[in-house]
């Protein structure tokens, strides 16, 4: 039935679940075995986390569905922009040090 389609199928859920497991195991193994340089590792596991986020959004939370215009997606995108601003901004601003500096 069309209604069922709109809310994902068992198959989609299972694929999503498997993907999320895989995306958890990869960074875990990488970290525990110190497989890469720190920077590379950092980037990789962050990318994995973002991918997992996407998996949850698309396979479980059905972000693509719902009536148009998709205000929820717009809100989410803006929210993510601001979260990134807060985190990155705070780190940037708080980087200043205890040394004598000119400012």
């Amino acid at each position, binding site marked *: 039935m069309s209604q069922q389609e709109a809310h994902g199928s068992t198959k989609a859920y299972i694929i999503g679940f498997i993907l999320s497991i895989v995306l958890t195991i990869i960074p875990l193994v990488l970290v525990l075995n110190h497989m890469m340089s720190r920077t590379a590792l950092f980037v990789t596991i962050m990318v994995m986390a973002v991918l997992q986020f996407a998996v949850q959004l698309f396979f479980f939370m059905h972000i693509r569905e719902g009536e148009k215009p998709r205000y929820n997606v717009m809100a989410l995108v803006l929210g993510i922009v601001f979260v990134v601003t807060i985190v990155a901004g705070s*780190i940037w601003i708080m980087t200043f040090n205890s040394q004598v500096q000119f400012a």
Partner: protein
Amino acid sequence: MAQAVSHHEHHHHEDHESLKVLGFWIFLVTDCLLFGTLFATYAVLYTHANPGQTGKELFEVPVFVAETFILLTSSFTSGLATLAMHKGKLKSLIGWLIVTALLGLAFVGLEIDEFIKLAHEGATISASAFLSAFFTLVGTHGLHVSIGLIWMVAIMIQLGRYGINEVTKRKVTIIGLYWHFLDVVWIFLFTVVYLLGVM
């Protein structure tokens, strides 16, 4: 006339329920901001640890890995619950919700246990800025999960009473979203706090 009213009512209800889902989405976005701010605080303070009390020394890999898989699975089972609901299967809907809640309960239990152990090692919230940030960030997530559990039980009771209708459907949808959202937050906790902590 009576017919017209009931038609009208039906229509109205559906509108109303979708309205609530949108509002809940926006609420989730504000919750994102809330966690974002906690993450920012953690990122700024996490180097401010006492010697011997850093993440590397405190975090236990098996514990947080177990927490992660439990929560991931519960996200999946809550998805199955939603699916059952759309198929109109009340029994399996409630069944999956129970599984989800039990997994959630296990998660919370593990986390409380973890916190107690840490406290016994002297790693309390007042020990250092790093631990303040750690406990607050992880604890806030745990609190969210716990509230979700109570709420889920309330919804199960309502499902038992009223079956699947527009209202309960909306409620199940919303708690499903909430649960997936908490899973997303946990993924970032897992990565930023635990993985980077033991790295």
